[in-house]
């Protein structure tokens, strides 16, 4: 049947049918090819720029090359802030197949605390460039490093990275002077160039580290690199080398600093030593301190709360922020004010009773000496620290001349050139009281200010820099930490240097005042006569700051009082008196008697001027000045 049918088939027509279909198919082919070409035209010509950019974004990565941080040296070339290589365990999340497996594998090799995992998880969720590694555990010990290195081959995405970390070799005595660096927070990134800090581990937080962040950091280097799809760097396209941070050379004397810190003993307190010739800070001590290295690693919550909750306030920088009544250490300045404004003279005699009254029958302002000092003059008032003399002087002057005169010595304002966060203390005035209490200034307020009490509050740094101005006979320098930045002398905006001299109406009063302050030591009634017997002349002034007010008739009995209510013991001094090389302010909180800071100051003078340090401070000697 089919064979028969076949015989009647029109082969020609069938061939033509198929041929037509072939032509139709050819048209179909051409149409589809046109679609393909149109698609290629769209991608390669119309959208070319878009895909060109995408391809470059794929392959080109900007890598930040963090510069090595500048070192901090003391005046003798001793390194106070160093860079040390550490090894950190880092993880590149993109290369990790299974985090749970990784966690298991790592835990069997080294200890990784829960908080380290937590931190890692937090940083994992934050934005970061693909293939950028995250630190899991920093500062591996040599043993941990060795153990991880052995197993690294089977831990995909895990690597050990060598980094430089900050290290403060001399710990807590220097914490408040040098400050510290810490992990970069989101807040820190707001004030710096984020790109530059991309590869950086730390940023200066406080002290010198904080203030000189820019100089110490240097300039980040950048390289444009070509990476493959797995983030591996294939070639370098462009490179800009990092500029290392500048080294800082401080005026600070490490031995003096440590010695002063140790001499404070178990007391809380502060010591500030300044070179009167330059305004350079030789020692900046606030006790207790803390180990700044804790902050470099990222302090644990427990450690931090211990520090914060300590009643001794170790994190509080007393030297810069501690507000103390300057007490009797204000008297030399007060006397100079009286002289300058014509309210006092060197010759005028005054009968000092055991108390002072503004009005007869008024409140009795008591002298520290119940029996009084008898007939005295201005010089005697310094030597014996006669309170009543200054009560009457201050009452005569009133607050305005006091305010104006003392502010020339830096009281009541921030004067530090290169440390942040200092308090301006309080130098009261009419206006201030009006604004603060909406009350007029009473004569009694002046009387209290006359002996550095009452409303007046100053920081150790302020009293020290005022003392330094006294030592240099009116050459007022803003106190400063840095001597040289890199190889260049530190320059400060608004630093007037020697031009900022305090000019008295009678410039001879400087010398006379220094003389009176020498007699504080040399006179048989001098309040610091215990400092006698040095080869060089010391000029000084003691002070005892009341922590709480005694009632009019109450007797101060240190035996009965709790230690925390004991008076603050203060001393200002400089030596050698003729051409001072060092001026010191020392305060022992609740130290009771001013003999403690006086003795401390004398030891510092001996040490600084004649190198009489106990031998165990040799490790802080440094290499000597380069």
């Amino acid at each position, binding site marked *: 049947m*089919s064979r028969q*049918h*076949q015989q009647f*088939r029109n082969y020609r027509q*069938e*061939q033509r*049918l*198929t*041929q037509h*279909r*072939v*032509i139709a*198919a*050819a048209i179909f*082919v051409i149409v*589809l*090819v046109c*679609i*393909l*070409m149109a*698609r*290629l*035209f769209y*991608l*390669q*010509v119309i*959208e*070319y720029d*878009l*895909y*060109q950019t*995408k*391809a*470059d974004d*794929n*392959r080109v990565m900007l890598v930040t090359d963090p510069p090595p941080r500048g070192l901090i040296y003391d005046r003798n070339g001793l390194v106070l802030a160093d860079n040390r290589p550490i090894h950190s365990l880092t993880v590149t999340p993109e290369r990790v197949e299974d985090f749970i497996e990784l966690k298991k594998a790592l835990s069997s090799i080294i200890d990784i605390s829960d908080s380290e995992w937590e931190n890692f998880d937090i940083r994992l969720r934050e934005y970061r460039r693909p293939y950028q590694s995250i630190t899991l555990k920093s500062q591996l010990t040599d043993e941990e490093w060795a153990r991880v290195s052995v197993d690294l081959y089977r831990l995909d995405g895990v690597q050990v990275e060598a980094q430089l970390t900050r290290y403060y070799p001399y710990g807590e005595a220097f914490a408040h002077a040098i400050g510290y660096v810490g992990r970069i927070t989101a807040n820190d990134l707001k004030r710096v160039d984020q790109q530059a800090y991309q590869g950086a581990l730390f940023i200066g937080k406080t002290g010198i580290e904080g203030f000189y962040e820019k100089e110490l950091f240097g300039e980040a280097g950048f390289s444009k690199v*070509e*990476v*493959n*799809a*797995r983030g591996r760097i*294939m070639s370098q396209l462009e490179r800009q080398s990092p500029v290392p941070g500048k080294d800082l050379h401080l005026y600070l004397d490490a031995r003096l600093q440590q010695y002063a810190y140790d001499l404070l003993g178990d007391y809380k307190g502060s010591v500030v030593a300044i070179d009167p010739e330059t305004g350079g800070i030789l020692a900046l001590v606030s006790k207790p301190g803390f180990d700044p290295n804790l902050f470099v690693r990222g302090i644990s919550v427990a450690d931090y709360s211990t520090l914060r909750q300590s009643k001794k306030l170790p994190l509080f920088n007393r030297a810069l922020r501690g507000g103390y009544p300057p007490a009797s250490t204000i008297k030399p300045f007060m006397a100079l004010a009286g002289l300058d404004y014509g309210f006092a003279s060197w010759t005028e005699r005054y009968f000092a009773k055991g108390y002072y009254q503004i009005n007869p029958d008024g409140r009795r302002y008591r002298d520290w000496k119940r029996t009084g000092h008898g007939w005295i003059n201005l010089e005697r008032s310094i030597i014996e620290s006669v309170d009543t003399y200054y009560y009457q002087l201050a009452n005569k002057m009133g607050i305005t001349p006091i305010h104006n005169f003392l502010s020339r010595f830096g009281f009541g304002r921030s004067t530090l050139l290169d440390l942040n966060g200092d308090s301006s203390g309080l130098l009261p005035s009419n206006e201030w009281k009006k604004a603060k209490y909406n009350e007029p200034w009473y004569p009694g307020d002046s009387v209290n200010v006359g002996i550095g009490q009452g409303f007046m509050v100053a920081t150790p740094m302020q009293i020290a820099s005022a003392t330094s101005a006294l030592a240099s006979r009116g050459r007022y320098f803003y106190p400063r930490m840095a001597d040289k930045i890199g190889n260049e002398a530190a320059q400060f905006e608004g630093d007037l240097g020697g031009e900022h001299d305090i000019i008295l109406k009678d410039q001879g009063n400087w010398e006379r005042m220094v003389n009176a302050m020498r007699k504080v030591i040399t006179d048989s009634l001098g309040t610091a006569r215990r400092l006698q017997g040095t080869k060089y002349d010391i000029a000084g002034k003691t002070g005892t700051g009341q922590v709480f007010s005694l009632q009019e008739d109450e007797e101060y009995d240190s035996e009965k009082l709790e230690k925390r209510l004991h008076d603050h013991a203060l001393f200002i001094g400089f030596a050698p008196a003729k051409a001072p090389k060092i001026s010191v302010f020392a305060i022992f909180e609740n130290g009771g008697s001013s003999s403690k800071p006086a003795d401390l100051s004398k030891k510092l003078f001996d040490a600084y001027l004649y190198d009489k340090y106990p031998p165990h401070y040799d490790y802080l000697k440094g290499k000597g000045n380069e």
Partner: protein
Amino acid sequence: MSESLYRRMLTFANARLWQLVHIDILLIGSLLLLIGGGLFVLYSASGQNVAMVERQVFRFAVGMMVCLVLAQLPPKYMRRASPALYVFIVFLLIGVLMFGVGAKGAQRWLSLPGGLRFQPSEIMKIVMPMMVAWYFSNRALPPSFKQILTVIGLIVMPVLLIAKQPDLGTSLLVAVSGIFALFLAGLGWRYILGAASLAPIAGYILWQVMHDYQKQRVLTFLNPESDPLGSGWNIIQSKTAIGSGGLYGKGWLEGTQAQLDFLPESHTDFIIAVLAEEFGMLGCGLLICAYLLVIARGLYVAAMAEDNYARLLAGSLTLTFFVYMFVNIGMVSGILPVVGVPLPLVSYGGTSIITIMATFGILMSIQTHKRAR
């Protein structure tokens, strides 16, 4: 002058000597052009891996031998063997489902003694149009409705077996090769339009039977940006490679997408993106021209063939070859979903080269075994 050169070339191509050894010089020539260009791109796409290029050359050598051997076989023997081959391969496909070895969750290979493996579905790409052509070889064209149904049955059976492996790409190509034969046989336009209007329903059914990973591919195709690092990665990177090549390309071995491994599967399915990146639209145009030469010759062979069997077989093999190319370039450039279809004769890989070269052996046989007129 150029006229006479063209004439001389034509004379050369039609020389009786070639006819005697059953070689169609125009087809072989354009194939060699395509293969040569492909090797050139493969060298770059493989990361300048000479060993890989050598293996590919070896495959082409084997493929060329298969091609030349098949060219010697007169079409009438092929026709006679067609139904037996079809039944045999269908049995093998069933065998694959029962005893096959696989990779990535799919069973596609049969193990042969001696450690060899082969993929029956690959051979089905040739056997399918052979079967349809055979079916129509002793029937009058155009086909009746009943014949159409029969042919659809012949197509659907192996297609389902292959889809079940699962290998959606191959099963569709096998279906397409059969349908092309049916089309060339003169399938009525009303059926074609009817089928086209049923396509949405077919699509829905297809979606229902698809595996999750297959569905994922389609979803990714529709919106690759939804998962840029996961399933969308391939297509985003291949579009980037193509687009960044521009008109003239970045230069041989200079394609950053390909050389820095951003482009996945750059030496296999996505090799056209390497070409597009390094040689630009110009390079792609030239490659497509080489394909068109092959296809044009194939369609010419089909149109000029002696009988229905030869016409349908040659035509559908050629069109299937085109579909390969179109689907591959379409998927790499993002106008079709990603199905695992290599770029014929250019992508690195074993089985497909042999089957494609076998295809052209059949075409040469058809062209060179015609009785002299």
